[in-house]
């Protein structure tokens, strides 16, 4: 492969998918893992595709989701452009605009794979079932997104470095909160991870919200626990980034005279705040299904579960791939727990293990540098 294409694929495409593996796992489960059989899965997606092709509102909703995803892609590239370690990408400015555009087109197509892949299915069904207008609209939307994002990225490569400026604007959070680990983490989450947070919360909130409002005679609490635990697992990439932020940019904090309890409590309150939308969405369990017990156990499980995932990351310096394997194991274990009638056990187990693991591993954690042997 051409050296330029190779480095763009490695530094942008591969890095992006590795960084967002948790989110994609979560989305994959939502889209393809909730149906009992393959036949039901095909039926579900066929009806979704038909709705997109025939209903203007459905098409607009799909477009809105694709736009949201495109903003995530742009924001990723923008983040790279602002990151000093990606300065080498600015060397692309020494080739002419047309070549630069075509060099960047390929990574954009790769980054937009979820969009054009689902778009292709819409077009195929549209052609097969003669919904010509819907198929043409979809094709135009996909092409427009791919070309538009490539153009924006070309522009960003020229200009983004200039956005590394001293901002004269004061941040609201920096005024209202005293300097503490809690504040640093809040600012990191709500400013630097805003889009990732928005997408995760959007999906996690709505799936829980709609499920809890299903009619009482078809409501199944084990299914809700399955969805809830999966939604919590979907937060794993935020936890992973939060830990990386703490250990890289806040590494000085390890030198501060701060008790482990304070750090643990800061993390706990962060996760409580993070799960407020889900706590509200879960109200349906109490109000519609009249199941207050499960409501409180779920509300308690949320932050302790995320705290447990965070604590587990301190046991070893896990790479994303290893973390995903661990997540899968945890997911299975907690699904099994949720099948029992003693749901009170779940938050108790999460809290107990989170505290024990955190206190035993926080100080012994060390970030390793990946040294690979010379080929």
């Amino acid at each position, binding site marked *: 492969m051409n*050296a330029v294409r190779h480095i763009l694929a490695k*530094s942008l495409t591969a*890095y992006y998918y590795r960084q967002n593996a948790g989110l994609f796992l979560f989305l994959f489960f939502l889209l393809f893992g909730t149906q009992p059989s393959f036949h039901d899965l095909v039926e579900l997606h066929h009806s979704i595709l038909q709705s997109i092709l025939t209903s203007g509102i459905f098409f607009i909703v799909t477009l809105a989701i694709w736009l949201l995803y495109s903003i995530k892609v742009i924001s990723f590239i923008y983040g790279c452009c602002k990151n*000093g*370690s990606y300065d*080498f990408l600015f*060397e692309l*400015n020494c080739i002419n605009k047309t070549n630069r555009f075509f060099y960047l087109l390929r990574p954009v197509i790769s980054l937009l794979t979820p969009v054009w892949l689902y778009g292709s299915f819409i077009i195929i069904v549209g052609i097969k079932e003669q919904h010509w207008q819907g198929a043409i609209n979809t094709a135009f939307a996909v092409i427009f997104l791919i070309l538009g994002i490539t153009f924006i990225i070309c522009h960003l490569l020229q200009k983004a*470095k200039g956005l590394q*400026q001293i901002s004269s604007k004061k941040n609201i959070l920096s005024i209202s909160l005293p300097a503490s680990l809690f504040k640093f983490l809040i600012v990191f989450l709500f400013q630097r991870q805003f889009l990732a947070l928005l997408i995760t919360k959007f999906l996690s909130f709505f799936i829980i919200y709609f499920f809890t409002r299903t009619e009482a005679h078809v409501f199944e609490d084990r299914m809700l626990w399955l969805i809830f635990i999966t939604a919590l697992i979907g937060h794993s990439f935020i936890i992973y980034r939060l830990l990386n932020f703490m250990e890289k940019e806040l590494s000085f904090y390890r030198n501060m005279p701060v008790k482990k309890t304070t750090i643990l409590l800061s993390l706990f309150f962060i996760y409580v705040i993070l799960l407020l939308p889900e706590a509200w969405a879960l109200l349906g369990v109490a109000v519609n299904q009249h199941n207050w017990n499960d409501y409180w156990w779920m509300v308690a499980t949320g932050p302790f579960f995320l705290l447990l995932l965070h604590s587990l990351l301190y046991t070893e310096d896990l790479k994303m791939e290893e973390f995903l394997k661990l997540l899968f194991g945890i997911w299975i274990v907690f699904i099994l727990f949720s099948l029992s009638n003693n749901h009170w056990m779940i938050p108790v187990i999460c809290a107990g293990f989170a505290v024990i693991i955190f206190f035993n591993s926080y100080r012994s954690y060390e970030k390793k540098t990946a040294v690979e042997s010379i080929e």
Partner: protein
Amino acid sequence: MLQLKNIKKEFGPHLIYSIDNLELRKGIYWIKGVNGSGKSTFLKMLAGMLPFSGDIFLGDISITKQQAAYRRKINYSPAEPSYPSFIRGNELVEFIKKLKGGNEQQVMKIKQVLGIDNYTANPTGSYSSGMLKKLSLLLAFIGDPEWILLDEPFTTLDQTSQLALTKLISQKKEEGVSFIITSHHDIESSLIPFTDIYVMNEKQLLKVS
């Protein structure tokens, strides 16, 4: 010749520096200045990495009008280089070679002078700060630049490598390449024959010798 016309660089409401007219003929220039005086910003601006008002000409090539042609003629090595930790040095070398038009022979020669061994086959996350610096210097010398901008090039280098770098700069000067070097440390003038020395002071670039 590098010509700067009506340059003004601002960060938000803060004026960093203002240069009405500056002509730098072929040679080696040293820009001094205290921490935060704007030396690195000045080099990044010359490298085309930061926007500014005004125009810069390399001969008759304008940075604002012939963006690609300008950038092909000017290479830059940052003060504190960093790269994605999972990218290998060799991949970056190939990337720059492709864009700037260097060749393997040239790379081997620079590697030899700078004392860079096979570590470039490893991911950059495993490099020491000195190794990263050498990699960034190697990348800055690749291709056929007319000007090379070196931001604090001697920082983090050991004494042997510092001498090797001065040798490389002198060699390249013989080949017609010009340099702008920033440093807040004193550089031994006998090692590098500076054409002129400038100081970044009070938002101005002043010639001191």
